[in-house]
């Protein structure tokens, strides 16, 4: 599911974690405690004044003051407009402090008066090597394995997506429907990583209900709607199928460049459960095909993989937590198993309200302890 448009803060925070591994960036912190060394940014209606444009690599903080007349927002972009950190809704006359970590490189700071458009941008340069605390070898191994896992997952998606795209292009509705959920499963498994590439997520996975005015709707759900409502595949859908494949190839080429850290793996796992809780359990994700349980299973599998990789380390720090997570993962997977049908899952519109509540309870039971994982890994 694309959450970029709908729940910007969450997604962006996830993206930040994965890109830059930044424990602090994940806790948007409004306190002024750390603003002593903060870079002062003065945002006005037509200017964005950044007091210092050479930053040290590592932990940084920005104190932005809105002296303009409109509500503004502040972004720090890495190249390709990948978001390092951001804060929305900074009212006129108010300040906000953003804490984040950043690696050497060139970046842009953008103020967005009226919270619209590309913003007023300033270049900043980050140099040096941050003092890093040595990483535990078990965590280093987890990171390496998670990287392999994401790469493999994307590779394994490609043939299934190819079947889907080819079926769409051949006008074979039945086959396209069959391959629709299969072609997405990998994406849902590594969704936090996939979403960290700014444009790809809205292009590939936006839902109709979440579109902004003027936003072009492309991707899986666009084709889903045609397949399950009219059953007509036109040249428009065929065009979007081509584009979906092109985007997947882009994802494949970029996925190896993602910076992965133990904290971002843990936060990604939690984020996957949040996806289930807000989109899949409600049946919003697959509004036309009702294949939500495929996505649900993909999200849970991705979270489980992340947990399993971190487990050797976490078990030593907090055995009770790993015990709880083992039990809750087993429970939710057992529950999902009840809905297995063939190589997939039953249609979600056959799952009644009471059973959805049971699934929702299981998601809460797993999501709550899973939210503690990052804290243990970061210690």
């Amino acid at each position, binding site marked *: 599911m694309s959450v970029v448009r709908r729940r910007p803060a969450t997604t962006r925070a996830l993206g930040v974690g994965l890109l830059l591994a930044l*424990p*602090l960036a*994940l*806790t948007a*912190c409004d*306190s002024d405690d750390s603003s002593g060394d903060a870079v002062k940014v003065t945002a006005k209606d037509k200017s964005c004044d950044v007091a210092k444009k050479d930053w040290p690599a590592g932990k940084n903080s920005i104190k932005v003051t809105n002296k303009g007349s409109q509500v503004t927002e502040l972004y720090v972009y890495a190249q390709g407009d990948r978001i390092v950190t951001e804060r929305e809704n900074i009212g006129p006359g108010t300040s906000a402090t953003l804490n984040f970590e950043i690696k050497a490189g060139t970046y842009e700071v953008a103020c967005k008066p009226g919270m619209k458009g590309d913003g007023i941008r300033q270049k900043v340069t980050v140099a040096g090597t941050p003092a890093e605390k040595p990483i535990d070898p078990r965590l280093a191994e987890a990171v390496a394995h998670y990287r392999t896992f994401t790469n493999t997952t994307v590779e394994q998606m490609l043939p299934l997506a190819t079947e889907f795209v080819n079926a769409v292009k051949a006008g074979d509705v039945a086959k396209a429907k069959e391959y629709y959920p299969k072609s997405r499963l990998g994406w849902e498994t590594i969704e936090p990583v996939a979403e960290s590439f700014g444009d790809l997520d809205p292009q590939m996975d936006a839902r109709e209900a979440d579109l902004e005015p003027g936003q072009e709707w492309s991707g899986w759900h666009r084709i889903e709607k045609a397949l399950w409502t009219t059953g007509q595949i036109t040249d428009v859908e065929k065009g979007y199928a081509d584009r979906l494949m092109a985007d997947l190839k882009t994802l494949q080429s970029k996925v190896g460049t993602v910076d992965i850290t133990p*904290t971002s793996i*843990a*936060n990604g796992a939690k984020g996957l459960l949040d996806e289930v809780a807000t989109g899949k359990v409600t049946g919003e994700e697959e509004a036309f095909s009702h294949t939500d349980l495929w996505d649900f299973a993909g999200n849970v599998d991705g979270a489980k993989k992340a947990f399993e990789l971190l487990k050797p380390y976490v078990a030593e720090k907090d055995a009770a937590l790993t015990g*709880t997570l083992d039990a*809750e993962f087993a429970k939710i997977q057992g529950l999902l198993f009840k809905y297995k049908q063939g190589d997939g899952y039953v249609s979600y519109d056959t799952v009644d309200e009471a059973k959805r*509540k*049971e699934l929702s*309870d299981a998601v*809460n*039971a*797993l*999501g*709550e*302890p899973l*939210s*503690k994982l*990052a*804290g*243990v*890994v*970061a*210690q």
Partner: protein
Amino acid sequence: MTETDRVAEAVEPSSGDGFSRRALLGWTGGALVVGAAAAGGVATAVTGTEDKSSTPALGSVDFHGVNQAGIATPVQDRLHFCVFDVITDDRAKLVRMLQQWTAAAAAMTAGKQIGTGADSGVPESPPDDTGEAVGLPPNNLTLTVGFGPTLFTKDGRDRFGIAAKKPEALAELPAFPGDKLDPQRSGGDIAVQACSDDPQVAVHAIRNLARIGFGVVSVRWSQLGFGKTSSTTPEAMTPRNLFGFKDGTRNIAGTETDRLREHVWVPAGEGPAWMTGGSYLVARRIRMHIETWDRTSLQEQEDVIGRNKGVGAPQGATGEHDVVPLKALPEKSHVRLSHPDTNNGATILRRGYSFVDGSDGLGRLEAGLFFLAYQRDPRKGFIPVQQRLAANDAMNEYIQHVGSALFACPGGVRGADDYWGKALFA
């Protein structure tokens, strides 16, 4: 005393020597008690100078005691009532959660944050406390727990090895004529009644308990309430319900030790030992047909209730608290039919709240009375009274019971090593 003074005192705990603050809470001098909580020290009680009826109390109510707070203690302005189902078969997990709940309840009723609080702890972890009550005094928050019949046995199964301890009085309520019960607003395994003079404080408490309970319990239904419709403080003005009438002027007051002993608290030797000092709670969601009521003539409204609408005097009397001349009231009037003298003395302690949950699909106010009544035995309290009312009450034309539940509320948490349900699960 100014509002600011009160806040200042509320945040400044005084040292104390362990006397019961609930006893000190004095029904005569205004219900304002401020300061630190039971767990910590004893608070300063501010008495004597308060306007009796109206003070926006900022104080705290002692969580520990022989009886649970939130029953006979003064009724606060706001309610968040939440009923949970237990979704695990693991008795140890349930017990652990009840221990965690108790610790959290003791903290929150004392105006403290849960665990490491809302803005500390590991930055990569979500905070222990959700934070929306930070900076707010407890506003007399009370948290009261009750156990439903299905916690003991469900589908004939002894779920947690406590079936033998199920009180006879905790039998399901009988069907009453006219009921239209919604299963999604009825029943449930564990109830928590959160009352406070600030809705934010009550909601915070329920939200955090629900969060602590994930994986063990699941929210089955909940109800927000405002504008208490009865009082346990004798001097206080009797509040009005959404029909615009005073009701329950003869409610049991928290000071009436004898009536409480006779009608509310379960005595030792009556039912299982864990219920000693406890009480039974009947919860009914009563929908009011506001629009049709509002186009009813004043005379009929007064005849339906059996009181005048102005001062609230029973028909045939002049003052609100006058003895009710039962024979003078219309036979089917609500007051006459629900009066203890019409019901062989059956008396309950009412603690209900009005509710408005927006509007329904037909544009009618989704409103009514969330009726809460505590009693020593529902078979002698609520049930006979409601049987009489359901069959005869003229008010039935304007109300409908749409939700129903019964809970056994154990005695109070006695100290730091006690917890909700300890005597039951021991």
